[in-house]
């Protein structure tokens, strides 16, 4: 299959503007004849559904949650990037574009990323107009802060709850379209298959999660905004219900899964503490603006801390290794996520970890509290302030910036992070891989679009902080509403599809048979227990560091686990009722296949880049070593028939504007 990214020709900075002005349109009258299905109601799904409804299309929007406002976008903490240059610190669209390409380790499409940087400025304006209460300066203008992998301040934020506020903005826009009758909302409906008619996506099969009813829904086009697949690792910062099912069902109907091995391991999460643990909690990257990451220099000190004989505060300055500041002086604690995560793993592997499991490092705010305290004391004309006064003043400022994060940390760990440094360790957070899409965000199945985290398009092999919110909203508000017209403009005389067509009947039967299969396996083990075991295999062999031998082994182990799953699964209850165990079983079945594909992709990519670190390919200092000659391509996998080997399609990456270089943050 020839993969055509359809990036328009011309100057990089002009591509999107020219393309927008020349792409085919659908007239308002014709929009009213066209139906669009949007699956997912997170930032990408809700913004797309609302915007398409505003344009006049008839939209049906689906979520498995009880309300569109619950989507996992809501948990994003730190912020959203935009090239506004409000700080006058040299930011520009080009610089955001460049940082994103470099941050992604030269594995993303130039054209897509430049467009993302261009529309970033419109997103902020749109969100402000909707009433998103971004942080402000005293003069009333918008405030910014820094995130990893950049040297400018371009991150807009609403305390540590930026995702929540942006999602509520999109949810409100969606609610308005629901009230106007332009969007029909289906809560508690899970998509279990996509329906193709003459090779084009024309509908979906859903299960009503309250009644268990299997339903058919037809439309002229289908948009997936169904998020990432980080929960393949079982333990991740993703919400419990995040899953790959919608995207994976599309793969099983012929869509391609691109770069599945690119997983983001976020450096600052609360370390794991027990076998019963159900998820990991992120501590926002914004904390690295002020927090300093360190471990003791001496193994003996680390050992004493692990045994509870010493505390972090007992270690004198001279005996601490601020390893990020030491190794990466130019970016310091604000190196990109993949770099910070690997560095944490490296010091812990050396035996310097500071939690009982050995897997944890400090994130310390003492210096920031003192710095802010002194500055505040000075600006309030205090003479000879005491250490306590300085600490109190500094604490108040840190609290204002990150209060909710500190509170969250204290609730989970029972420790006061103002007094004792936070303990953190990397955890799975985001997946850069996803459904292959062209410049129009259309998959290789005509009429099937993918937006937000569920596509692979903009982040290459590593996503920079505060760029997920940007991409989700860029796709939904400002890209898809235009580009979907390239497909729908050819469909203006296509009548509505009847759900009695044989293609719908076939897909419904396939869904019913599959669910029936889970219910009647009558084995002994829960879906949850299989998921945990899959997660352990993935983290061990396809996590922060990978090698050929481990990946081959992981693939074997997953195949064995899958066979066991289909032989020994137990699902209580029945299909025609509220049955979370059945939902889980169907999702775990898809995770098993996705996990295997991730290992296959990671094995095939014999290089290290971004979040994909192959131990065989590293420099002497332990930095990732790319192989541009052989691997400067998007790996798009087709796997309709999982009894066969998956098929690899390569889309070469062509850099016309950026000089591809070794990625250095030193």
């Amino acid at each position, binding site marked *: 299959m020839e993969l055509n990214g359809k990036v328009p020709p011309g100057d990089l900075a002009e591509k999107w503007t020219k393309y927008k002005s020349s792409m085919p349109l659908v007239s308002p009258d014709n929009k009213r004849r066209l139906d669009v299905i949007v699956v997912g109601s997170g930032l990408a799904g809700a913004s797309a559904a609302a915007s398409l409804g505003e344009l006049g299309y008839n939209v049906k929007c689906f979520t498995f949650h*009880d309300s569109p406002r619950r989507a996992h976008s809501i948990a994003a903490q730190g912020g959203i990037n935009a090239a506004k240059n409000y700080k006058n610190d040299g930011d520009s669209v080009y610089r955001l574009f460049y940082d994103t390409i470099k941050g992604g380790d030269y594995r993303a499409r130039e054209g897509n990323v430049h467009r993302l940087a261009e529309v970033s400025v419109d997103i902020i304006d749109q969100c402000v107009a909707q009433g998103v*209460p971004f942080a402000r300066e005293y003069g*009333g203008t918008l405030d910014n802060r820094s995130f990893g992998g950049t040297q400018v301040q371009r991150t807009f934020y609403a305390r540590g*709850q930026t995702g929540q506020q942006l999602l509520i903005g999109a949810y409100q*826009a969606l609610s308005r379209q629901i009230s106007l009758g332009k969007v029909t909302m289906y809560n508690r409906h899970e998509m279990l298959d996509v329906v193709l008619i003459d090779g084009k996506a024309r509908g979906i099969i859903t299960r009503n999660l309250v009644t268990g009813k299997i339903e058919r829904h037809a439309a002229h086009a289908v948009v997936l905004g169904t998020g990432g697949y980080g929960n393949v690792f079982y333990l991740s910062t993703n919400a*419990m219900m995040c899953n790959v099912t919608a995207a994976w069902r599309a793969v099983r109907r012929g869509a391609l899964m691109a770069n599945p091995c690119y997983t983001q391991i976020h450096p600052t999460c609360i370390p794991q503490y027990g076998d019963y643990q159900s998820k990991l909690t992120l501590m926002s990257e914004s904390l690295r603006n002020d927090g300093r990451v360190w471990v003791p220099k001496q193994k003996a000190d680390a050992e004493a801390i692990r045994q509870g004989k010493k505390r972090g505060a007992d270690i004198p300055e001279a005996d601490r290794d601020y390893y990020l500041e030491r190794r990466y002086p130019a970016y310091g604690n604000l190196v990109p996520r993949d770099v910070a995560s690997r560095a944490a793993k490296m010091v812990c592997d050396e035996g310097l970890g500071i939690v009982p499991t050995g897997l944890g490092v400090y994130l310390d705010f003492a210096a920031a509290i003192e710095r802010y305290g002194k500055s505040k004391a000075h600006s309030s004309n205090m003479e000879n302030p005491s250490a306590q006064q300085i600490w109190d003043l500094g604490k108040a400022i840190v609290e204002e910036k990150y209060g909710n994060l500190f509170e969250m940390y204290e*609730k*989970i760990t029972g420790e006061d992070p103002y007094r004792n440094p936070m303990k953190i360790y990397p955890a799975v957070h985001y997946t850069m891989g996803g459904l292959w899409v062209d410049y129009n965000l259309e998959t290789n199945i005509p009429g099937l679009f993918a937006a937000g985290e569920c596509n692979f398009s903009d982040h290459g092999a590593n996503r920079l902080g505060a760029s997920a919110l940007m991409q989700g909203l860029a796709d939904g508000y400002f890209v898809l509403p235009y580009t979907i017209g390239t497909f729908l403009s050819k469909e203006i005389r296509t009548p509505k599809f009847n759900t009695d067509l044989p293609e719908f009947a076939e897909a419904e039967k396939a869904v019913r048979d599959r669910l029936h299969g889970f219910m009647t396996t009558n084995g002994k083990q829960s879906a949850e227990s299989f998921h945990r075991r899959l997660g352990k295999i993935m983290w061990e062999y396809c996590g922060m560091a990978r090698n050929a031998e481990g990946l081959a082994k992981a693939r074997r182990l997953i195949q064995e686990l899958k066979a066991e799953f289909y032989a020994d699964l137990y699902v209580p209850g029945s299909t025609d009722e509220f049955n979370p165990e059945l939902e889980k079983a169907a999702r775990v079945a898809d995770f098993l296949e996705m996990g295997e594909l991730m290992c296959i992709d990671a094995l095939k990519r014999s290089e290290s880049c971004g979040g994909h670190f192959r131990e065989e390919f590293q420099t002497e200092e332990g930095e990732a070593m790319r192989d541009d000659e052989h691997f400067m391509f998007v790996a798009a996998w087709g796997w309709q028939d999982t009894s066969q080997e998956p098929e690899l399609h390569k889309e070469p990456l062509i850099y016309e504007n950026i000089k591809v270089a070794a990625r250095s943050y030193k």
Partner: protein
Amino acid sequence: MKLNLKIWRQQNAKASGRFESYQVDANEHMSFLEMLDVLNEGLVSTQKEPVAFEHDCREGICGTCSLVITGQPHGPQSGTTTCQLHMRHFHEGETIVIEPYRAKAFPVLKDLVVDRSAFDRIIQAGGYVSVDTGAAPDGNDILIGKEVAAKSFDAAACIGCGACVAACPNASAMLFVSAKVSHLALLPQGKPESARRAMNMVHQMDEEGFGMCSNVTACEAECPKGISVENIARLNREFIGASFTTSK
């Protein structure tokens, strides 16, 4: 630690429910929901039906989790959602009573799961700013003072979990409605339609069968996000003002 649980079981919205007793072996590092996971894993392993409860992000922001734990929505810790509640706040041998939210407007779907879609319909009635994508001025064209933005944010921090309704003896949704009305009415962007918004949202709240507010303020006490009843005062002001200026 060994715990006794009394949990509300109800097959579906039409069936009548009852309490059932369970024993669970937990440890103090677990979150409350992880303790329920352990209970459910045990039930499934003996081929019994697990307890249905709702949860998703498990970090206190999505608003999916609920539960009334020994009489308190989201349990005994203030400013804490059920998913952030940890077992170190309970003691060996304690009996914990776990019920769904109880309100006419939140019918039980199964066990501890209730239908909160009434909240969505209240937002659809007017909880938004009417602006289409692409019609926005530059973000800095609208100046908003730091304190005003912070106050609006405090109201916008509502997670829509419904604890305010569960806490209220009248099952009133005033705190939820007032949080949205305040969030938008405080900002210049929300001003032009603030009267319509207050009127329509209150009307929808009444339609859904929520009770009246009688200033008990249990809602504020139980709100996991600390939403203040000051917002209710602002809603009342907006509503009374609106009744002079709108036709509804």
